């Protein structure tokens, strides 16, 4: 995993400036670059470099699949340590799994694998959950969001 010291001040400014609000116009990179005081080619080169180094996981539109008639659902599993690698491979192989994180509790929570299912239709979630349970042999806890509270979506670069 790369650390913050592998990005320079210009990279930081790009990340801070471009977490949202990327222009929709003929030359959007040129417009964004001029706001940052750099050239279009430099911005394109730096974005590609940060994607290659995995400083950025993506550059582009972030979709709210619920607004397209689909669903995003948080799910958790309690995976025994001895079975960990097998279950990671089983779960990650599903295209419906958008993110997957290993987590450890401050207390005694036994759920150690947390993933988000994203499907194009709402009933796709149930099918994906059933398929993951069958393939892994472990039960899946689903925690759909009942309500989302407003948050400011940006994180300033640290370190």
């Amino acid at each position, binding site marked *: 995993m790369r650390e913050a010291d592998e990005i320079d001040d210009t990279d930081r400014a790009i990340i801070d400036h471009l977490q949202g609000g990327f222009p929709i116009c003929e030359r959007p990179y040129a417009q964004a670059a001029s706001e940052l005081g750099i050239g279009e080619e430099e911005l394109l080169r730096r974005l590609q470099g940060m*994607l290659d180094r995995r400083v950025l996981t993506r550059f*582009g539109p972030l979709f709210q699949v619920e607004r397209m008639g689909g669903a995003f659902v948080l799910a958790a599993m309690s995976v025994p340590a001895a079975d960990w690698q097998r279950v990671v491979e089983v779960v990650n192989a599903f295209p419906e799994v958008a993110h997957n994180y290993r987590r450890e509790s401050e207390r005694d929570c036994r*759920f150690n694998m947390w993933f988000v299912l994203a499907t194009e239709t709402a009933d796709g979630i149930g099918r994906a959950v059933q398929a993951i349970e069958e393939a892994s042999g472990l039960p899946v*806890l689903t925690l759909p969001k009942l309500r989302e509270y407003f948050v400011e979506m940006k994180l300033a670069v640290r370190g």
Partner: protein
Amino acid sequence: MNADIDGTDRRLVLATQGGLPLVARPYHQLADRLDIPAEEVMARLSRLLANGVIRRIGAVPNHYAIGYTANGMSVWDVPDERIDELGATVGRLDFVTHCYYRPRRLPHWPYNLFAMVHGVSRAEVRAKVAVIAELVGSASPHDVLFSTGILKKTGLRIGR
């Protein structure tokens, strides 16, 4: 498929879910690929942004790589009748990046309020969780689940 989305919108989602082309005229390149005018690509993206199908267009940083090496999902068991009030209050904190009301799944899962907290260290995350605890009331049972590894982070992939 939602009424807000037609077949061309869906093709636009498929063409951009992996990222926007890193070329000088990205919307024109998408237009060529989809065989529609560039003006239509831009008009459709603007509409999808306005109606919330697109949350935002921009960079998605890897939290670890930009210095947030500690990521804690704080989970709280709060009274259902106070969930919206507390959710709005906690979501407003500048260090909370996601805040949701989710169902309890008793007996396995007793928590109904989720607030994601990022920091440069676990100590910083714990200090922020303590701020939430003051707002929520220290009587509310809670836990913090720290991320110890990103196993996958591709985002939405439909149509495969």
